[in-house]
């Protein structure tokens, strides 16, 4: 057996694999950085209904999230449909979501209804405040769960998040008239573990859309040249707000999601300007968002 040929062959194969691997990584990183820095063009009519997905986590995260939503005075006539995503076994978050919907949203809705009734001309503009659902997904890793089984439960959790984003989760009902797309328009989270699955799933779906768009465009290239801005491109936008409890260091989910979230807001000045790698978007200092 003339071993020198096979050794040389092996060397070339290894070298080729390495170059291919490294260039794939560079292209993927570049694509991620590019897509992260892309701005959403102004395409959405002012009064179009919005589907908001809020990812809730355990105790502190949930309390902070509703604190933020109250402080920003979430407008139910704008964000007409709200989905709250909670982890299994987290009754606290689900209860808080119901409390927020009944106490806050109803109050705002009544106030705006009264204002609209007083102003008779604006009566047609009075819109319903829509509805909400609470969706439960399995945890990626339960407390005390073995690390051996954790990858499987993580995949299960990820799959569940994909279903939620596509509106196919058993907890969800088919959406009603004003909202046509199954995909949420915008995803808001402040860093529980589930957020990692949700944001990665959103990125994956958008990647699929991009691929499908390229394929269909090639197929239709000869026949039609329609408008380029189709809605799914600008849905599933993700906003990650680092927890208010994080003053000088990012949380683990924050570190993981820094390259993937479309907007990454921090609430303390010491965290401003961090980025995942050169060329990527920096974290944005938004000041205190909780009340």
């Amino acid at each position, binding site marked *: 057996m003339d071993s020198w040929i096979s050794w040389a062959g092996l060397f070339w194969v290894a070298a080729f694999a390495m170059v291919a691997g490294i260039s794939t990584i560079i292209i993927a990183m570049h694509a991620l950085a590019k897509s992260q820095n892309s*701005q*959403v*063009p*102004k*395409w*959405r*009519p*002012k009064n179009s209904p*919005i589907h908001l997905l809020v990812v809730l986590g*355990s*105790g*502190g995260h*949930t*309390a*902070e999230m509703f*604190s*933020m939503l109250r*402080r*920003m*005075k979430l407008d139910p006539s704008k964000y007409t449909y709200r989905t709250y995503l909670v982890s299994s076994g987290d009754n*606290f978050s689900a*209860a808080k979501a119901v409390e927020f919907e009944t106490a806050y949203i109803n109050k705002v809705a009544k106030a705006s209804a009264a204002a609209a009734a007083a102003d008779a001309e604006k009566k047609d503009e009075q819109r319903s405040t829509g509805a909400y659902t609470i969706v439960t997904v399995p945890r990626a890793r339960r407390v005390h769960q073995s690390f051996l089984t954790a990858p499987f439960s993580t995949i299960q959790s990820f799959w569940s998040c994909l279903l939620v984003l596509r509106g196919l989760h058993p907890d969800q009902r088919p959406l009603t008239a004003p909202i046509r797309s199954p995909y949420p*328009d*915008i995803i*808001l989270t402040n860093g529980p573990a589930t957020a990692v699955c949700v944001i990665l799933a959103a990125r994956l779906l958008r990647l699929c859309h991009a691929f499908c768009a390229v394929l269909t465009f090639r197929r239709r290239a000869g026949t039609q040249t329609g408008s380029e801005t189709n809605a799914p491109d*600008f849905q599933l*936008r993700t*906003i990650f*707000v680092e*927890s*208010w*409890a*994080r*003053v*000088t*260091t990012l*949380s683990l989910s924050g570190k993981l999601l820094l390259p993937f979230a*479309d*907007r990454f*807001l921090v609430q*303390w000045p010491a965290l401003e300007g961090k980025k995942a790698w050169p060329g990527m978007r920096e974290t*944005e*200092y*938004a*000041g*205190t*968002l*909780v*009340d």
Partner: protein
Amino acid sequence: MERPIPMRARSPIKVCFVTVGATASFHELLQTILQEDFLQVLRRFGYTNLLIQYGKDGKSVWDAFERQYPPHTGCRNGLLVEGFDFNPDGLDEEMRMARSNLSKGHDGGLIISHAGSGSILGAMRLGVPLVVVPNSTLKDNHQQELADELQSQGYVIASSCQNLSAAIGRGERLRAQMLAWPPVCAVSQRRQRSLQEVMSDELGFLD
């Protein structure tokens, strides 16, 4: 300021509320506040009630206290000490008891809390002086940073379990010069995009 308040026959109610949170156990804090000398300090500053949320794991510490100092024997320094494990509806009601309320005869009290963000925000929103005690046994100790930062901005008092007695006096000083929460944006401050605006950016509304 730190001068002990003289005892009167009909003194107003003054509540000190202690919360250790729902998730992690915090025996160190419970043991500190249930010591006799700590109760003495509270009494010296005019407190009449001590209300404790001890959590699911804190029952053993609470029961030990009940056995060691049974109520109505005078060893609680005249304090009315009560405890409960957890309130699934949130702790706003209990925190409100520490707020000054003249019509109910409540003097302004104090909240001693673990460094969980939910509890800190709840207390700051009510404007009750707050002593934050970070749990040093938690592995990822970012709680200490939050407590220190809020202390340096003048919103709360950060304390360890060892220095908790001194923190009671500092609580009285904080009451005199408390800042309102949430902070108002100062004019000189650079204007940041609000959450509402960031969401609108990402939705791409037409002008």
